[in-house]
């Protein structure tokens, strides 16, 4: 047989021939080749790092919440890199603390929707039949409720805290995840390797997680990243109309709302939160795309 020669060769030289890289390093390598994605990841890393280390530079109560009317509406300067707002608070400081809120709610909501969507979608797609119909009608009902309206309702019924907002915005996204995961599973369920996995005696749960879900990671990742982006936007929307995060807690949406009145004279007030939103959301989207390409070993060159 053709491989006998290779089998007979000493193991050490084989190790050289088949030099292995760990899979994570492989993915990382391919991800970095995508320049856009790499830049987006850097931007996001800076935002996350800033949000995490904010307490080292500022005092939350004093700098982000208290009023300093004497310093109001200052242009960017050495003390206040991005200037101060209409009540004299440092804009950069509030942006960084606002990132905390946005990221927490965005990631929380997306993760919540992903977990529930994965469970519902896998059960519906894999087993089909009546369970599938029930689950899909349930998601139809969820789809029929406007997300923002549902968010307003839940936040008003409970409290506009990070937890309830994540919950509210997560719920409205469950149906999207369920549908995407269900359709991916439907297309993979009948592949021969799934049948082969059943033929070696694997349990349903193992088949769903190891063989099916992992194979539809690509659309799930993209959707997850997109979802974080849109959820952050929704939070800002809700705060912008005054129903979300309540003052004085800094939030990009409420900062935009406050700055709106001064847009003619002090445009930099709007720039800060606007650019922050733009960078964060587009970073998430680009990273999602990059991850999808990096995770697919079939695209390996």
């Amino acid at each position, binding site marked *: *047989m*053709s*491989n*006998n020669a*290779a*089998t007979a060769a000493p*193991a050490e030289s*084989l*190790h050289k021939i*088949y030099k*292995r890289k760990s899979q994570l390093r492989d993915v990382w390598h391919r991800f970095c080749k995508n320049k856009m994605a790499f830049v987006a990841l850097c931007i996001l890393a800076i935002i996350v790092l800033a949000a995490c280390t904010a307490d080292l530079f500022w005092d939350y109560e004093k700098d982000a919440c208290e009023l300093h009317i004497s310093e109001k509406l200052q242009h960017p300067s050495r003390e206040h890199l991005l200037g101060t707002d209409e009540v004299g608070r440092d804009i950069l400081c509030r942006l960084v603390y606002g990132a905390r809120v946005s990221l927490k709610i965005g990631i929380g909501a997306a993760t919540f929707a992903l977990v529930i969507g994965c469970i519902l979608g896998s059960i519906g797609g894999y087993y089909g*039949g009546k369970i599938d119909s029930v689950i899909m009608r349930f998601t139809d009902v969820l789809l029929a409720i406007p997300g923002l309206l549902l968010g307003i309702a839940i936040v008003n019924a409970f409290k506009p805290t990070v937890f309830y907002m994540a919950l509210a915005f997560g719920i409205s996204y469950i149906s999207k995840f369920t549908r995407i995961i269900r359709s991916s599973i439907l297309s993979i369920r009948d*592949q*021969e*390797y799934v*049948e*082969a*996995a*059943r*033929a*070696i*005696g*694997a*349990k349903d749960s*193992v088949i769903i997680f*190891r*063989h099916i879900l*992992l*194979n539809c*990671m690509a659309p799930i990742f993209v959707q997850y990243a997109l979802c974080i982006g849109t959820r952050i936007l929704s939070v800002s929307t809700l705060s912008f109309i005054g129903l979300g995060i309540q003052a004085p807690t800094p939030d990009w949406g409420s900062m935009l709302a406050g700055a709106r009145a001064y847009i003619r004279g002090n445009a930099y007030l709007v720039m800060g939160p606007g650019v922050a939103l733009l960078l964060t959301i587009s970073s998430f989207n680009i990273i999602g795309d990059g991850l999808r390409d990096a995770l*697919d*070993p*079939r695209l390996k060159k």
Partner: protein
Amino acid sequence: MEENKVASANEEMLNIKGLVVHYETEDEVVEAVNGIDIVINRGKAHGLVGETGAGKTTTALSILNLVPDPPGRIVSGEITLDGQRLIQFKELTEEKRAELEEKGAWAPSEPALTEREYEHIRGNKVAMIFQDPMTALNPIMPVGEQIAEAISLHQNLDKKAAMERTREMLEMVGIPGIRADEYPHQFSGGMKQRVIISMALACNPSLLIADEPTTALDVTIQAQVLDLMHELRDKFNMSLLMITHDLGIIAEMCDEVSVMYAGRIIEHGTLEDIFDNACHPYTQGLFNSIPNIEDRKTELRPIRGLMPDPANLPKGCAFCPRCDYAMDTCAGRKPEKVWLSDTHCVECHLYQAGDTRRKL
């Protein structure tokens, strides 16, 4: 003959009795398998030949209780593996039984084991090799991990020991163990099929079902894979159910042959019975469709027509519309099984009990 069967009972690896499998949709019932019997003894290879759609794969899937349900349903029959019932007849009241007999319906069957118990049998006692190696491996898992999965499902081994065993299995089929960390797309078709074979053999199954294992491979690789299977069968004393439409493979690998047509076994016998004394017109048609290497002037005589629609089978013999020897009785009545010798049986109106030689 009956004595023979009793004596060999403990040697029986697989016994399928009267298996009936239907695919039932809202508009029609596809009768894929219609009452077949197969017995495979320990260490023997049994060939199942037939055209596409004859019900070969469905038969194989029934053994593992993997017929896609819905729409598939094992309607009737009994399957015994190494003394263990896999599919059994339902217990019926006398009235119900009489009612079914009156209608001429199949006696209903049910799975004899729970899903858990089937999982224990699949891959452990019975393993299956699939037709297309290109799609039978998960593209995003290293092949070694997939083999190790089969091992760790059935044997109490820790991860390291399972990987160790995986490497051994790969070496056994002629792939360097170090390649266990590679993905399926890094292997050629023949190597993928070997990976699949090593996966199937990882737990030393007592019965291996090979569903057209060489159809997707080119001839040189075919020979290698067949050699390998032969070698491994002798080594582990496995029974083999070889599903194929290639009579050459049957001649090389099998001890007994069943020819399947439209869900029925129309002729069954030892290798010699079928190859030297093919009796059913369909079996002869199969042989006439192969080029004869010794006499190159003979024309190929393919069987005319197509297999009947399994959702709409003829009332009498299913082969009747294509048969050159069809008689009046053929269209009206299904032929009974006729034993020509202890080992050779045929379902055809041309033969009556007591006949021993071919008539065509």
